């Protein structure tokens, strides 16, 4: 499979702001290592999911891939070429091909603009249309892709006149209007009622099938990732812990963190006596990362070596990589 987006040894570090006194007298600048060495390849027409808890760095990866966040080091190749930074011509071309869908459709749409202008704005900004009739035509086409029909009924509406699901469809139409090749969808359904989540997910899959769009799907909900994606990567504190096909990650995961996440996932079943691997505490501060494996302080099967040496992401079976010194299955059987 040809890869559309490829990140190697990607690092994104932020300066940590200490107190004023600390900033003056300390000669050691503290850093938040939000993304700390991530490698991913996303193929043509692939839906690739990045799953993790808050603070794992998943959104930062998504933003870095779109040059919305400066990378500290590493390379990001889009169709084999390093992505441009800055605001030049090549940067504009890149932005037409790579789009983002945000989490909150209540905040991502300008409340004073009508749907026609929101969806048509990318065309205007990029000087891709000459007349307003042309804009209208293109917007109608995009609204159709996003499943807002009859399109004419939506053109002159304001965001507050739309439901949450309809707003997210408008955001999707605006992302699709430039015929992108790659879309980063950051928690696109987590603000929506469960009854309409499926429609938005189905729409994403449909666009992949019809237009061959590749996705980076960022979510905290492993079950949604399992539902629509080809491959899943599990992130913890800026690093990928495990990566593999959806079936492998959910059915035969080998990293203790992945297995803990799966065991606590709520299910539409009676699970009162289910065996769970509930981890103690919370994700530690990314400023002071643990020595060795960054998961070691919370790991239920930690050994001495885990406190000294950081495990590399290594292939256990073809297409299944795990960053753990002792990858093995901890719980057996379904609930």
């Amino acid at each position: 499979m040809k890869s559309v987006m490829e990140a190697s040894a990607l690092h994104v570090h932020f300066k940590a702001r200490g107190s004023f006194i600390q900033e003056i007298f300390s000669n050691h600048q503290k850093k938040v290592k939000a993304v700390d060495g991530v490698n991913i390849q996303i193929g043509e027409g692939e839906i690739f999911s990045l799953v993790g808890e808050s603070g794992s760095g998943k959104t930062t990866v998504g933003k870095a891939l779109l040059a919305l966040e400066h990378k500290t080091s590493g390379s990001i190749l889009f169709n084999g070429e390093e992505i441009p930074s800055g605001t030049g011509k090549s940067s504009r071309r890149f932005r037409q091909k790579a789009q983002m869908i945000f989490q909150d459709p209540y905040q991502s749409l300008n409340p004073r603009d009508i749907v026609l202008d929101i969806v048509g704005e990318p065309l205007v900004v990029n000087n891709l249309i000459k007349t307003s009739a042309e804009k209208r035509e293109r917007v109608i086409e995009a609204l159709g892709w996003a499943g807002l029909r009859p399109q004419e009924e939506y053109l002159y509406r304001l965001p507050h006149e739309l439901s949450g699901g309809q707003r997210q469809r408008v955001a999707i139409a605006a992302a699709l209007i430039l015929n992108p090749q790659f879309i980063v969808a950051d928690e696109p359904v987590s603000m929506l009622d469960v009854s309409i989540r499926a429609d938005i997910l189905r729409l994403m899959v449909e666009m992949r099938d019809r237009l061959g769009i590749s996705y980076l799907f960022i979510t905290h909900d492993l079950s949604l990732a399992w539902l629509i994606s080809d491959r899943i990567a599990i992130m913890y504190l800026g690093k990928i812990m495990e990566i593999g096909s959806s079936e492998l990650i959910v059915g035969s995961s080998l990293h203790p963190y992945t297995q803990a996440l799966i065991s606590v996932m709520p299910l539409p079943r009676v699970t009162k006596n289910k065996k769970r691997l509930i981890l103690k505490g919370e994700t530690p501060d990314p400023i002071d990362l643990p020595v060795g494996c960054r998961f070691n302080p919370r790991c239920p099967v930690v050994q001495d070596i885990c406190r000294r040496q950081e495990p590399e992401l290594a292939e256990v079976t073809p297409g299944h990589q795990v960053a753990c010194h002792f990858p093995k299955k901890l719980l057996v059987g379904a609930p």
Partner: protein
Amino acid sequence: MEMLSVRNLVTQFSIKAGQVKAVDGISFTLNEGETLGLVGESGCGKTTTALSIAGLLPSEGRVVSGEILLSGIDLLTLSQEELRKRRWKDISVIFQGAMNALNPVMKVGDQITEVIMLHDNKNYQEARKQVRELFSLVEIDPDRIDGYPHEFSGGMKQRVMIAMALACRPKIVIGDEPTTALDVMVQAQILNLLERLCRDIKMGLLLITHDLSVLGEIADKVAVMYAGKIVEMGSTEDILTQYRHPYTEKLVHSFPDIYGKREMVSSIPGDPPNLIDPPSGCRFHPRCSLATIRCRTEEPGYIDLGGGHITACHEIRGYEK
């Protein structure tokens, strides 16, 4: 033992456009040490139910009729002052995003101490001792009693709020989406804690959520709400596997099951109805694939399916699993 009994509760809001029938005749009971889940989409009236029980409705809201019996006393007949004394002691509420309700410039321990001193007539030292015990109960290190809210993570702040809700040993705790803003692992920790508290201190828990899958882990009984009414109620097992109402079915099937088949979850077409002028007959009929003429004109009554499982649907017989 029956602790809370809500009978034919009707709560309405007066807004410019008219009367919003947010809760329209719901009844349920909650027993000692039991967890009842109240589930539904946004706008179905689940939070209004919680606010009505706790006597915390905003000024536009009013309980029009019904009874809310707590250990046999109708809370709706009490004055504001009597109700204020009972809040915390009989009923307390954990709100969604409650961790943001802590006063940022006051030590967390003192915020709970204040509640205990006011409601239990204890002096500062006694109250402080009790807060330390509460902290151990909710698994926070008692030495953090003098910490400020910003020193606690989201999950820890939610534990502080639970400790505060338990401060005066209430008979009933209402949790309104208590884990919604939290990460899955922290959510599992909090649910585990609530489950243990129900068992150990015989607390009754009314858990309000939009997430049916959370209830599978913790609830004994589940009531499914739609447009201000309970459309189906039964044991968690009944609701998740033996559901008989088409709305419950759609709701259950909108969650992916990683131990089941990998197929696209279902969505529910249309939007929840306007509650100023709700649909005639069965309120779900405009979105229901089984709706008949009867559903459009006649409101269905409850059918008793045995073992506390009830449902309000005309088409239940044409709907064998």
